[in-house]
């Protein structure tokens, strides 16, 4: 179950192939093939595979390779979601083939329908299910200066750092560079220059590491890059698909909180204003006042009150088509721009803000440890509940 499903308390759909465990069952894989040397375009081919329901889609593909056609191209090695080789799209969803159970994939495809396997998105296809990770994923990783830059000479023994901080960055360290989030990212589809979820998570691995001496420079760099940390549209896709619970979008949010909260970096992308507007609005109304989001983001206050900062006007004008489209579609009504209802229990929202602000330091969620939704363990859960509020 993805993290998102867990958060939303969605239950997994029942698996197909209800036969007893370990018994082989028949599945059909519909694989998108592409041979760059043939001069022809990609085509689909179906393979019948006979494997047990709890085996993976990768096992299915390997079965097809072993029994029928060994020329099917797919990178794979560990079979255990560790090496990060086997990212593909299964029934349209980006995932590792080796940790997607074939019976689950069948359930998603629907009874009697083939399981559709395609190469990952947002990266050029080299052959069959193999994409060019260098051209996209690794280029972006390289972009975030992916190595530790400590100040001065290292100590004689280890760096003394808080235990929690190491656990904290271990969540992004858990990334296996599989590119599945890159494949799923909506912002990347629109803006191929976007640094992207995996590379930004990698950036947090250094920003969150107390041993690194370039925290502010890293944050400034990624805040000011128009394709940097503010180019993410919070679509949750990366969180949902990541096989290692790295939760890239959360790491991006932490980068932003660091940039705005700790360093007050006022970037030209106006991410600072956007974030602040967001927080202020929830404090006032409890829900987002969408019509006010744009003006508030670009000024330090409401457009109506005429407090927009001059520097932001240009960008606001550029964003006007969006607002007009909103008005036309009825999503934003002129009335809504002026009046926004408060939540009935807005007082509670204010209390939460007070509670958080009274804490000395900002609290960060550590999903890495709270990878479980049962609440029987004080130590681990405490951290989780805290962030539930932030």
């Amino acid at each position, binding site marked *: 179950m993805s993290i998102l499903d867990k958060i939303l308390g969605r239950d997994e759909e029942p698996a197909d192939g209800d036969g007893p465990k370990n018994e082989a069952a028949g599945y059909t894989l519909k694989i998108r093939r592409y041979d760059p040397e043939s001069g022809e375009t990609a085509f689909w081919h179906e393979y019948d595979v006979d494997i047990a329901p709890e085996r993976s889609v990768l096992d299915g593909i390997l079965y097809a390779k072993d029994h029928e056609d060994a020329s099917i191209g797919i990178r794979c090695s560990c079979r255990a979601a560790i090496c990060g080789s086997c990212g593909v799209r299964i029934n349209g969803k980006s995932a590792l083939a080796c940790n997607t159970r074939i019976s689950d994939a069948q359930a998603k495809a629907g009874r009697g329908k083939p399981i559709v396997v395609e190469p990952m998105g947002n990266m050029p296809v080299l052959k069959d299910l193999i994409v060019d990770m260098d051209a996209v994923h690794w280029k972006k990783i390289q972009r975030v200066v992916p190595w530790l830059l400590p100040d001065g000479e290292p100590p004689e023994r280890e760096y003394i750092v808080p235990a929690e901080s190491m656990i904290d960055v*271990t969540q992004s360290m*858990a990334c296996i560079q599989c590119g599945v989030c890159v494949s799923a990212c909506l912002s990347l589809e629109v803006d191929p220059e976007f640094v992207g979820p995996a590379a930004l998570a990698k950036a947090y691995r250094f920003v969150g590491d107390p041993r690194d001496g370039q925290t502010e420079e890293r944050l400034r760099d990624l805040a000011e890059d128009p394709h940097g940390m503010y180019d993410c549209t919070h679509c949750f896709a990366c969180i949902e698909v990541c096989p290692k619970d790295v939760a890239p979008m959360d790491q991006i949010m932490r980068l932003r909180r660091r940039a705005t909260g700790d360093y007050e970096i006022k970037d030209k992308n106006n991410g600072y204003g956007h974030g602040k507007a967001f927080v202020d609005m929830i404090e006032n109304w409890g829900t987002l006042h969408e019509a006010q989001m744009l003006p508030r983001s670009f000024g330090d206050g409401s457009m109506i009150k005429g407090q927009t900062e001059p520097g932001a006007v240009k960008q606001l004008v550029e964003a006007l088509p969006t607002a007009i489209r909103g008005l036309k579609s009825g999503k934003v009504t002129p009335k809504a721009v002026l009046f926004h209802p408060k939540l009935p229990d807005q007082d509670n929202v204010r209390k939460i803000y007070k509670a958080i602000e009274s804490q000395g330091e900002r609290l960060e969620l550590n999903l890495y440890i709270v990878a479980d939704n049962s609440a029987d363990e004080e130590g681990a859960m405490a951290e989780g509940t805290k962030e539930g509020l932030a």
Partner: protein
Amino acid sequence: MPQHDVLVIGAGLAGQRAALAAAETGASVGVISKVHPVRSHSNAAAGGINAALDPEDSWESHAFDTVKGSDYLGDQDAIEVMCREAPDEVLRLEHLGVTFHRSDEGKLGTRAFGGASAARTYYVADITGQALLHVLYEQLMKHDEVTRYEEWFTTALARDDSGRLAGAVTRNIRDGSLELFTAKAVILATGGNGQIFNPTTNALICTGDGIAMAYRAGAPLMDMEMVQYHPTTLAGIGLLITEGARGEGAHLLNAEGERFMENYAPNKMELASRDVVSRAEQTEINEGRGFPDGTVALDITVVPRHRILQSLREIVNVGRDFAGVDITSEPIHIKPGNHYVMGGIKTDIDGQTDVPGLYAAGECACVSVHGGNRLGANSLLDTLIFGRRSGVHAAQMGRGMAQPTPAGSELAREREAIQSIISRDRSGRRLSEIKAEMGKVMDEQVSVFRDEERLRGALEVVKRLQEEVKTVAVDDKGSVFNQDVLGALELQFMLDNAECIVMGAIERKESRGAQFRTDFPERNDDEWLKHINLTADGDIPAVSYSDVTMTQWEPEERTY
């Protein structure tokens, strides 16, 4: 024709560490890997890395545990080097950015591991290998004086007229082109060969390529019979449940619910050496006290849940995704499974093999620090220490030397061999069928308990398969990512490895470490306290022996 001072083949921990060390001396370095470096199998190492870093601990204690763990077959000079240099190496990696687990005071914290007399295993949750590998790769991205050949597959080593190593023939997987690389020194860091066995904890890429290439180039292989069966692997697919689980206190139970290790290792219980625990489990299973699926149970529920989630997260996932078991609430069925090869290319403590200019480090090498049985968390250490030492030595050796000239025939020969596989029409069995037969016979006849008759049977099968693979055909006729033809080359490599493993096992007529001969059930120091070396020599390897280096520890009986 790419040229380097030092050419490293393999980019797991050993290869990356060697490359970094060589580059730091100013040498020009090329690193070749058949998969992207972070896909290397080192990333699977979950448990941790050993070092006597705590002032209360001592490298001598670590060394003694290792000597004892090796069943006295490890070379004590090499073990001393490894254990003495371990603390600095761990600190070095910490400084480079590894996010090691900390104690409450913010210092490096440890966990207990099997066969060790102190808790000296340093770790990053249960992704230690991955964390180390990714941090080293960060350094490779930083050092642009290291040229990376990612997704290039080495098919053979090349020598010059004097017999000195001069380079390697390598195929660019992306376009199928074949290149002759030249170098003053070549370091093999190609990892283990677990895929010979089925099932195995090893990844699909662990096919013993470097071991076979070195063997074909005339380097002796040492103690190849020493193959580790890990006590806790999932039945069927063979995935590993880290020893960290037992380190955190998990119990082993037979089908009667009995904590059977009491009968085999009353002091160390579940944390006895791996060979001891694997034999205990196999005995329980063979004598009918296992579960019907041929397993015993690992009960992790006795470990506090918060601790499991914090430091054994990966196996929570493995249990859930690959066995459908929630290990925090129920025991999981496990059995001994192929895991690691202690034997390999014979080297000295600087990684030099018997062939001038050829080095080896990591799992493909046999220094030997593991002897008859490797202790958990000593392999990562081995890769780093001897990877670094090889890198430094190779770079120094090459300084001032002229670029050697490979004898020339190698490139043409490899090109022709590959072409003939690709153009051959199918007759006979598929590659996958030959591989499956090899995996089965090795697991059934060359595993925890061995005897002469079944070993001879296995050798016959391996020899037959070696013939069969010479005429095997492939489905993929293309140049771009032709994984099929690489599979054929790997299968040939694996069969050479298999032959040497079986030969060594037949040769060693005693029980020591991982080798248990039911027909020779005792350790026999008088005759067999020695290494077995195998050298390519026509149809069957030539056997010779070398002494085990002793410094300060005399062989004793081994109890846990």
